[in-house]
């Protein structure tokens, strides 16, 4: 979610809450013999802060039921961002800016990590989509990259087969674990031989299982590779070569997309589980606090 002008009311409200909280805290911190969760105000901070955190955590539950008409997810997301952001000052006020001991300290650290990852995530969500849009014009659905890739292999196979008559690629049984392609090719002076050779030995392994170390994974070296290939082939094949090049480009973009998608979503691996842990421990903390 991009934080833009449409967030103004949220920002104002958050600022107001923050100001109120701070305003209440100042005399409290000055006047009260002690600060912290045990005091009335501290407890109040704790309750409100926990409330925010709980709401913020509920986003993931809300996402499980996308069509529930319980407020637009977007609103929830805004709440997630702003109330989540507010929860830190409130919890700090609750704790009197102390990290506490034992569980409380673990909570604080967890909270810090969750918060930091959240900030990081917000930043990523702010920037990565633009980068993906810019760098991966042939983007597809992340979950379908494998599927699309298989279709690209098919497309390339067909392309080469169409261009050069037949393509006999025997893939050894997967059980053997070998990735080397056994190929049977005609040996006569066939103008398409360089194409097939290139395809079977270089491009197909790349398209099938792209690796970043493969020469075709690099735009420049791939372009060079195709430039070398072209003069070996009759002009009539150049269209096919251009198509293959485009397939490689798509392949590269898919790799890039997978990578960028990983970056865009990896923080969630930290954020979400830890926030659940945080909630679990926070509840333990609350129980402890209520009991003792």
């Amino acid at each position, binding site marked *: 979610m991009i934080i833009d002008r449409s967030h103004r009311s949220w920002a104002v409200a958050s600022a107001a809450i923050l100001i109120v909280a701070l305003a209440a805290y100042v005399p409290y911190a000055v*006047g*009260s*013999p*002690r600060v*912290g*969760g*045990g005091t009335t105000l501290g407890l109040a901070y704790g309750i409100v802060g926990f409330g925010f955190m709980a709401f913020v955590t509920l986003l*993931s539950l809300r996402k499980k039921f996308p069509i529930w008409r319980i407020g637009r997810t977007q609103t929830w997301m805004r709440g997630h961002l702003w109330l989540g952001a507010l929860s830190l000052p409130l919890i700090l006020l609750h704790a009197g800016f102390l990290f*506490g*001991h*034992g*569980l*409380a300290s*673990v909570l604080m650290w*967890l909270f810090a990590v969750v918060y930091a990852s959240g900030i990081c995530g917000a930043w990523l969500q702010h920037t990565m989509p633009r980068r993906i849009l810019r760098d991966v014009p*042939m983007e*597809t*659905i*992340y*979950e*379908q990259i494998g*599927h*699309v890739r298989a*279709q690209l292999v098919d*497309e390339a196979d067909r392309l080469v087969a169409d261009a050069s008559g037949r393509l006999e690629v025997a893939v050894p049984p997967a059980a053997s674990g070998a990735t080397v392609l056994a190929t049977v090719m005609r040996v006569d002076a066939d103008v398409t031989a360089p194409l097939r050779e290139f395809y079977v030995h270089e491009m197909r392994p790349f398209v099938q299982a792209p690796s970043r170390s493969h020469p075709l994974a690099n735009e420049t070296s791939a372009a060079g590779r195709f430039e070398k290939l072209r003069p070996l082939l009759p002009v009539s094949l150049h*269209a096919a070569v*251009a*198509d293959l090049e*485009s*397939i490689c480009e798509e392949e590269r973009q898919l790799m890039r997309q997978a990578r960028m*998608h*990983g970056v865009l*979503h*990896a923080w*969630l*691996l930290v954020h*979400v*589980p*830890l926030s*659940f*842990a*945080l*909630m*679990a*421990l926070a509840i*333990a*903390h609350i129980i*402890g*606090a*209520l*009991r*003792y």
Partner: protein
Amino acid sequence: MRIRTAKMLAERIDLNYFKRAPALRRWRYILSIAIPAIAVLWIAGYAAAGIRRPYSAGPVSSAHAFAEMKCEVCHTSANAPAGFRAHVSEKACLTCHDAPAHVVNQTPSPACVNCHVEHSGRVQLAKVGDGLCVDCHGDLKTMQGAPAISTTVGRFGSRHPEFAAAREGAKDPGTIRFNHALHMTKDGVRSLRGIEILQCTDCHKAARILPPQGGSHELRVGLMSAANYQQNCARCHGLEFDYRIEQPAPHDKPEAVRAAVRTALQNYIAAHPSEIIKPDDPRRLPLNFPPAAEPPARNATEWVARRADNGERLLWSRCDVCHARTGTVTVTVPQAQPVADPRRSVTVTVSVPAFAASHIATRWMVRAAFDHTPHLMLQCVDCHAAENSQLTSDILMPKQATCATCHAPSRGAEARCFECHQYHDWRKSHAVSPAFKLTDFR
């Protein structure tokens, strides 16, 4: 060119793909369950192992350190409703501690833990924050009647009322004329032993003050004792009244002084009957007592009477140096006649001067305690402006601001209420018998 129409792109997609979670999402699910589970297991593990440290709110005070791992010592659940809440009860505290009440008509009667907050580290529980006091004293209400003290007390140095003694217009209630400036002159004072430079401590000494009713708590040490004639004044301000008698008159009530003078003279003449007729040595008479041209005494009684009158006159004038004479009183004294028959007792009524009571204040701040001991590194005059004081009525107590020079939050010296004031009225304290043995906590 490869044709990539929207439709072709869309058709590449397996329509049910979203039902299968990709690695990232799967890991998110796994971790979302695993990590909270680990967290719960961690906390539950401690609970199972009986280790309470993780959910201790913090280390307990040094005094209670012995019970740090035994929560139930304080968190008794016996009286908790439904058995869940285990807040620290008054009873738990009072098991070991005597905590007399504050004042009878205070409005709320806070629980111990309201002020003495545990789990805040190795602190002294007695040192409670001002807020707790200010809560009430900031806007004091009482159950009944108007409070005798300021009802709006706040932080020391700013919202704390000026010490009553040091307020504008306050006067020292003492009646003893004492010119501090005169005594504290740098040139010293002339005494019988020559020029003497006086130190404050020559007159003022710290003293212990015990609670009036024999309670166990000392009120405070290090108050200054009141100056004392015998110790501090007599050396210079002697009460000799006759050159023949070495013993000075006692520093006592006038009638006692009269009796003592007469007794001393009677005893002297009895011992020296020859001197009845011997006139006084004019050189040894006080300057303002010119020798009377009168005939020699006829008898001892007359001699005593004459000499006693002189001596008393002298002495009363001496009293007037320090004490304020309020008039005369009539007292009945025994007849000063030669006693033929000692069994006969004849009394006469005489009049003697009367003096105001001295009213020397020994404790200026009655609601607070001050200990001079920690302040010994200071010069007395740093706080007490005695050097220039010429009048008894001058208040020499420092003002609040003087204290706040150091006793301010920003200056380091303790400025909280408990520094000077006591919450518990220790006058009402009583002994408590210990409920635990040390071995309980081994």
